[in-house]
């Protein structure tokens, strides 16, 4: 009731202003009339009575004003007045307003973008119920992968997880009746959807009860997106028969719209039960040695700590090691967040993003410092106006409120522009598919967290830089200012503004150093020796997709190689089951020839293993240091041979010379002779230290995975077409993926490129802010000291001396800031080395580059003020004032 009356009162005040005023007038008129009538009755003349009544009442306008105030909502009203006044003032100086808003928009935009990415990568859990209790299993001796039998044991014997689910990422050919196309899928355990507590959008999911051994559950659950794009929202799709790698499957359901599995940024097309993994044609479901299950994870039971869960898992691991000594290594676990590919990339990404966030917030601080100086200068310019207002009776509070209103208005506008820009950028980013072969999207959608942050940042920075001129206003003495005009006191001592400027320049130098280090590191990486040639073409096929298995695979591979060799202009064609630096490597244990104990814990090392055709080395451009390559005689019927790299030979046999002709053992006990030594190369990451690798003849160790490397001088575009048609003639049902060796590096280059780009952008922002800051400082000091400079010129000062007087301070600050920034940047680059391989600041080019860049920035920023200082005309200056 009371609240209602209050709101009605305020509502009338703001929305029925004129009506209210008229009513007030009428009420007061009627009061005076009534009073006049009374007076008249007591014997006064009518005219006199009316006059007396008006006099008795006093100033009507004042009463009306007081009534108006009594209506409440005064804060709102003064705020509206302040805003109106501020808008009028800003309209008078659009350049100032625009500069301030843009500066803030850049800084706040940078913060929102970085925060949004951080939010999506780290803060926001997966889009499944109770994601916070979801943990992935990581084997300390290895990584997150498990063999299927191990997974089943862990699942059935643990007491810590609600349901231990597992999945694997795979690529298959899906044929809905006309044309087989490649699809990325997740092979999920039967308890996957139930364990995650996800409900189907359409049809049903598969369950644990659907699993009855290998290949017992030929079911498909489509993701919503794939159903939408490839089945056009056809609800009749449930029950439809399709072929996956030529095996019959049935579509049983569609997942809900927001659900795309449990891997951030990976969007599979559909899910199939993991028990049907054998269609892959490679590994066997029940092979305990083959760790192909990508990620195992589950919700911890209520009340179970991670420590208890790890102890539980470790005891199962010990038991498995006892039971299967031949197959198992030591099994100890830790629990990790499963969504960021476990900790595969979580660690460095977290570090890098945190660093980026820090830099972004520093940039915002620098922007605030700049705006603070701008506002202080503006307040100084307005000191006459402020003094007049004070002299006329305005309160300092009111003036300060005006200043803050201006600051907050600008910061809100800047925040809005920055947020809008970052939403636009993020939308572009979300549509971008960074890896052409891989359905990964950086689906970073800003949520309420982000909006809130942008608002808070805007308000906070508004108050921060709005507070800079406060002291100035509080100390304004109206009489002095009006009497003498604003005085140009020159501060000789170190002021807070100087410190801010040095910090800002240092920050800029840090960013410039980091981005130069990153760029140099990246360039260095690309020039380094990979152990293979970058100028080759690649063609990938997966024979199981067209139904090939067993002995039919090698025959197909030979036909494909022959078909490609027949293309005019192709010099050589090699085939390998996997390529270095493309999509993650396969490793295998090897044992010394003298060992008979083949338990994994006794392995001599764990090299990368490539299964290659005889011509691979020649085609890929991997040179042999000694020995021979494979030949077509190294097949199933001949003795086992291998080519190893230099690192392998040195570690296993002591030296490259010793290696040639020596023997080692494979995990199944096969003695293998080293017939050739290949050069070392990069296999997993650009920044890795040399690691052992071995090559086995694909005829002796068959693999269905087929990457073909073509060496040719022909143009890659037209060669691609020729490859496609040649392979279509081999088998039209075989989906082919064609790319260049260089493009295939995109995956490993993604991180370094992103880091370099991000640092470059932030560096640019930092540079802009630093230039603005130095410019502002230099211009201010020149304009404040124009008279002094004029006198110097009049007394015969040299140009050099004048410049030194005018800009010496600015350059000194620039030098201090740059030096500090350079040192800090060198320290920060250590963090960078995690992401960009070979990023080292101990590089004369980088150091020179930083110094040059900072000098250039300084020159750019002080150019105009310097010109102004030099063109001082002493006569005119002295005549003024």
């Amino acid at each position, binding site marked *: 009731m009371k609240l209602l009356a209050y709101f009605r009162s305020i509502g009338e005040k703001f929305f029925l202003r004129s009506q209210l005023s008229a009513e007030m007038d009428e*009420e007061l008129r009627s009061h005076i009339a009534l009073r006049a*009538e009374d007076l008249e009755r007591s014997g006064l003349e009518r005219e006199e009575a009316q006059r007396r009544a008006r006099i008795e009442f006093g100033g009507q306008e004042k009463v009306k004003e007081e*009534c108006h105030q*009594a209506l409440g909502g005064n804060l709102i009203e003064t705020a509206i007045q302040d805003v109106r006044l501020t808008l009028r003032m800003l309209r008078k100086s659009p350049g100032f307003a625009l500069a301030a808003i843009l500066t803030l928009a850049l800084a706040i935009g940078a913060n929102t973008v970085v925060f949004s990415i951080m939010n999506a990568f780290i803060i926001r859990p997966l889009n499944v119920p109770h994601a916070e209790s979801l943990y992935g299993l990581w084997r300390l001796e290895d990584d997150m992968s498990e063999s299927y039998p191990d997974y089943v044991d862990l699942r059935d014997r643990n007491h810590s997880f609600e349901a231990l689910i597992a999945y694997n990422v795979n690529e298959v050919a899906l044929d809905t009746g006309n044309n087989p196309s490649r699809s990325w899928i997740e092979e999920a355990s039967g308890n996957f959807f139930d364990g995650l507590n996800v409900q189907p959008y359409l049809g049903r999911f598969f369950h644990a009860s659907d699993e009855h051994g290998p290949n017992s559950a030929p079911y498909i659950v489509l993701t919503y997106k794939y159903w939408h794009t490839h089945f056009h929202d056809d609800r009749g799709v449930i029950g439809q028969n399709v072929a996956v790698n030529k095996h019959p499957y049935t579509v049983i359901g569609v997942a809900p719209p927001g659900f795309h599995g449990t891997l951030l940024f990976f969007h599979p097309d559909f899910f199939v039960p993991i028990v049907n993994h054998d269609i892959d044609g490679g590994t066997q479901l029940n092979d305990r040695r083959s760790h192909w299950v990508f990620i195992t994870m589950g919700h911890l039971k209520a009340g179970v700590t991670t420590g208890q869960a790890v102890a539980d898992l470790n005891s199962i691991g010990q038991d498995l090691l006892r039971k299967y000594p031949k197959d198992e290594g030591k099994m100890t676990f830790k629990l990790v967040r499963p969504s960021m590919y476990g900790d595969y990339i979580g660690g460095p990404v977290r570090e890098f993003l945190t660093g980026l966030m820090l830099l972004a917030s520093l940039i915002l601080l620098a922007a605030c410092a700049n705006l603070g100086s701008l506002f202080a200068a503006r307040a100084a310019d307005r000191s006459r106006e402020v003094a007049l207002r004070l002299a006329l009776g305005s309160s300092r509070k009111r003036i300060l409120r005006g200043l803050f209103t201006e600051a907050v208005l600008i910061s809100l506008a800047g925040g809005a522009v920055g947020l809008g820009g970052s939403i636009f950028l993020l939308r572009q980013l979300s549509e971008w598919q960074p890896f052409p072969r891989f359905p990964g999207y950086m689906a970073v959608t800003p949520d309420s967290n982000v909006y809130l942050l942008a608002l808070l940042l805007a308000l906070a920075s508004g108050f921060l830089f709005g507070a800079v001129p406060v002291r100035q206003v509080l100390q304004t003495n109206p009489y002095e200012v009006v009497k003498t005009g604003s005085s140009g006191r020159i501060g000789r001592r170190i002021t807070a503004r100087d410190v801010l400027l040095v910090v800002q320049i240092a920050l800029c130098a840090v960013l410039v150093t980091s981005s130069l280090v990153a760029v140099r590191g990246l360039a260095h990486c690309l020039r380094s020796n990979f152990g293979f040639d970058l100028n080759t073409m690649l063609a990938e096929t997966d024979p199981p997709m067209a139904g090939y298995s067993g002995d039919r695979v090698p025959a197909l591979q030979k036909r494909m190689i022959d078909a490609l060799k027949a293309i005019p202009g192709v010099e050589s064609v090699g085939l390998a089951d996997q390529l270095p630096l493309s999509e993650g490597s396969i490793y295998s244990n090897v044992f010394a020839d003298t060992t008979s104990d083949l338990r994994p814990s006794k392995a001599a090392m764990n090299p990368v293993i490539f299964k290659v055709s005889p011509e691979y080395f020649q085609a890929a451009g991997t040179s042999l240091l000694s020995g021979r390559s494979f030949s077509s005689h190294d097949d199933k019927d001949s003795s086992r041979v291998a080519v190893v790299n230099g690192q392998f030979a040195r570690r296993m046999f002591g030296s490259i010379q010793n290696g040639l002709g020596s023997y080692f053992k494979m995990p199944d006990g096969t003695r293998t002779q080293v017939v050739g030594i290949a050069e070392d190369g990069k296999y997993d990451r650009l920044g890795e230290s040399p690691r052992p690798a071995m090559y086995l003849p694909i005829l002796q160790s068959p693999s269905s995975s087929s990457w073909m490397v073509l060496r040719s001088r022909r143009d890659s575009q037209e060669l691609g077409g020729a490859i496609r048609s040649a392979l279509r003639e081999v088998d039209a049902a075989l989906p082919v993926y064609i790319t260049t060796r260089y493009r295939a590096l995109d995956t490993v280059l993604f991180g370094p490129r992103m880091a370099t780009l991000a640092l470059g952008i932030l560096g640019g922002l930092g540079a802009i802010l630093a230039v603005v800051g130095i410019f502002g400082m230099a211009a201010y000091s020149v304009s404040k000291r124009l008279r002094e400079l004029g006198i110097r010129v009049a007394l015969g000062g040299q140009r050099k001396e004048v410049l030194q007087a005018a800009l010496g301070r600015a350059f000194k600050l620039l030098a201090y800031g740059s030096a500090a920034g350079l040192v800090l940047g060198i320290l920060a680059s250590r963090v960078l080395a995690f992401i960009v391989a070979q990023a080292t600041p101990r590089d004369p080019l980088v150091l020179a580059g930083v110094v040059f860049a900072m000098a250039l920035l300084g020159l750019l920023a002080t150019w105009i003020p310097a010109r102004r200082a030099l063109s001082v005309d002493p006569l005119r200056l002295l005549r003024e004032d």
Partner: protein
Amino acid sequence: MTDQAQILPGTLDILILKAVSLGPLHGYGVLLRIGQISGQALLIEQGALYPALFRLVRQGLLKASWGTSENNRRAKFYELTASGRKRLREQMEGWNRLATAMGSALAAQPEEV
């Protein structure tokens, strides 16, 4: 004017509420009624009345409506709302307590101390 008591701060509201509680009044009527019930001892400055009336309306203690005065003039009439009645009761109790306390304090004799 000098023989009239100054109004203590904060007492204007209670006087207005009391005056209006005796029957709906227009602004000028409020003035007259306060003079009448205080035996012309308390007189309110005419200009101060209206801001107070507006404030009481905003606080939901009074309700205003346009009507016609005894001599056929259009005027705004104020009457008490339920919460205004409650507020008046509370303030009267408070005021009486204060008056009693003041009375006994000022009547104190040396021997009672």
